[in-house]
């Protein structure tokens, strides 16, 4: 008996602290956040009272300006994910299947290198690239070299986010290619399939879980981002900006109500990606 209980005891003592941390600090604070969306604000002192109200929720769910902004934010996050995907699949394929074995490691390190630079450094670097200038100033890199720049706006935001989160998409797809046996490609070729047919019918279906896993990172990080849109977005906004402004107003209940949007969008997104097998390959 004692022999059987002791390992359990050991396991329990190891797991109790992290589990308590997860349950209380993480889930607990998240639920407190959700609950605070239902409190009324004392409009003068900016502190929440203990009276209940549905006004915050109503404001957040019905105003068309906010609904449009949420649609735009989802669009930006989806577009950034697609840009990452379009760049990551050929890159990962090359590194995994074409590059010489000795070059592989160096290439992977080179592609993860941008993660070593700070977020703000990268965002402001891209600001210097996209600055449109005007007839009274030469603007940034693009405007002053090729004479054209998309300017500050959603296009610049999408490319900045894609640049920031690219490694998070690359790594799972690279791992997916590594798991993909070369013999499958050979077999497909032996059966008469051309390059594109092999890619479409053999490689992509096996890669779906990896893509789903990578897209969770790029989509969720983009959806929650509110800094790069300030730096390169010009007059554009994302959900995060509205939440920040409500929080600083300070109107914590309204900010909490706004956060219900990204939370529910991410829950739906995770369920869909889970169905595609994203979590089997993490």
């Amino acid at each position: 008996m004692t022999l059987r209980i002791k390992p359990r005891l050991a396991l329990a003592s190891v797991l109790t602290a992290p589990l308590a941390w997860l349950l209380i600090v993480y889930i607990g604070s998240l639920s407190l956040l959700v609950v605070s969306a239902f409190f009324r604000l004392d409009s003068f002192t900016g502190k929440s009272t203990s009276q209940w109200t549905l006004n915050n929720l109503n404001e957040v769910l019905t105003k068309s300006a906010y609904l449009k902004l949420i649609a735009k934010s989802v669009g930006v996050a989806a577009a950034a994910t697609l840009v990452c995907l379009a760049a990551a699949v050929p890159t990962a394929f090359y590194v995994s299947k074409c590059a010489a074995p000795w070059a592989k490691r160096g290439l992977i390190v080179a592609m993860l290198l941008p993660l070593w630079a700070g977020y703000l450094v990268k965002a402001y670097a891209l600001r210097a690239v996209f600055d449109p200038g005007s007839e009274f100033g030469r603007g940034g890199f693009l405007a002053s070299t090729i004479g054209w720049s998309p300017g500050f706006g959603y296009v610049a935001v999408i490319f900045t986010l894609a640049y920031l989160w690219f490694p998070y998409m690359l790594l799972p797809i690279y791992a997916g290619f590594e798991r993909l046996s070369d013999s499958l490609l050979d077999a497909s070729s032996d059966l008469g399939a051309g390059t594109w047919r092999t890619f479409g019918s053999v490689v992509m279906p096996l890669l779906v879980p990896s893509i789903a896993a990578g897209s969770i990172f790029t989509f969720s990080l983009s959806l929650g981002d509110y800094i790069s849109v300030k730096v390169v977005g010009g007059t554009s906004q994302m959900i995060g900006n509205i939440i920040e402004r409500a929080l600083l107003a300070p109107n914590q209940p309204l900010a909490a109500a706004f956060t219900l949007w990204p939370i529910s969008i991410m829950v739906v997104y995770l369920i869909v990606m889970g169905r595609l097998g994203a979590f089997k390959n993490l």
Partner: protein
Amino acid sequence: MKKIHKVYALGTVAVFLLASCSGIQGKDEGALKSLGDGEGQVNIIAWAGYVEDGSTDPAVDWVTDFEAETGCAVNVKIGNTSDEMVELMQSGEYDGVSASGDATLRLIAGGDVAPVNTDLIPNYASVFEDLKNKQWNSKDGVAYGVPHGRGANVLVYNTEAGPAPDSLSAMFSADSPYSGNISVYDSPIYIADAAVYLMATQPELGITNPYSLDQSQFDAAVALLTDQKSRVSQYWSLYTDQQASLESGAVTAGTSWQVIVNLATANGAKIGAVKTKEGATGWSDTWMISSKAKNPNCMYMWMDHIISPQANASVAEWFGEAPSNEESCALTADPNHCATYHAGETAYWADVWYWTTPTSECLDGRGNKCVPYSEWVNAWNELRA
């Protein structure tokens, strides 16, 4: 045993959570009675350019000598907007703040700041009388801080983009020559700038105070800002963002602060700045002490230092505002500084509307029908969405 530990741990964490979320306040109503020794440090929230220790420009330094004299190390956190300052002060982590009028009343009402015993601040005696015990820095005749200085929000413009403007129409008119390159301050309080313009251009609305707007006046201001949106290229809240855009030429006109104009000019931007003929919004800032200050003695010493003639002259000159201390005018590097910024001219300040928190009780005595600040925030959020 294990179970007990678990329950204990759960309880501890729960108490922490409750304490941090339920807004329990350790409020101390009274002002400090006497000054003790410094605590060795002081943590303050300030506008950019208010607390300079020589790291921006070696010649701009009024912190090092204070630290040497008092032994209080100054830790500064830059607040970008009044809303952010209120939020930071509510955390109780800071000893004091340089609050503008749209924050002071909220801080007083929220119990986040304590009354100030001005007897402990010798330099208070030489502060301009028309800044003392005003509606934005006192309550029932009790001072809640010391006046720091005042200024107007200026219109900045690119000197090569056309003749120098003198009117807010550069910001609000549909045929503004700066259309498409306009920079706007990204805060709900900016609605008051639209109201100032409406006071001059649409007198039939009957606006008498840009911070006291009834629903129809408020709607007119928001409509003006919605119309302005298509001509705006930037809404700034970080002052460095506007500075960078002025330098690159991406912005050719905007609402600005003199300190941004100074910094961008130093980097070669070809810009000028003017207080518009319609009047302007502005600020009259107040150093306030937190009701939960952990270093009250150092904070009192700081409040005395920052309004001392020399330090107040330095900060006023660096930031580009009028000093609050009458004796500072003799000590500025530019002998005309006080004249340029109209420090003692009561008439000049008549059409500068200091930032004030809008409340449902109108400030001009029309009763309880004005739009409160929380509605300003919602309107601004919707406008920006």
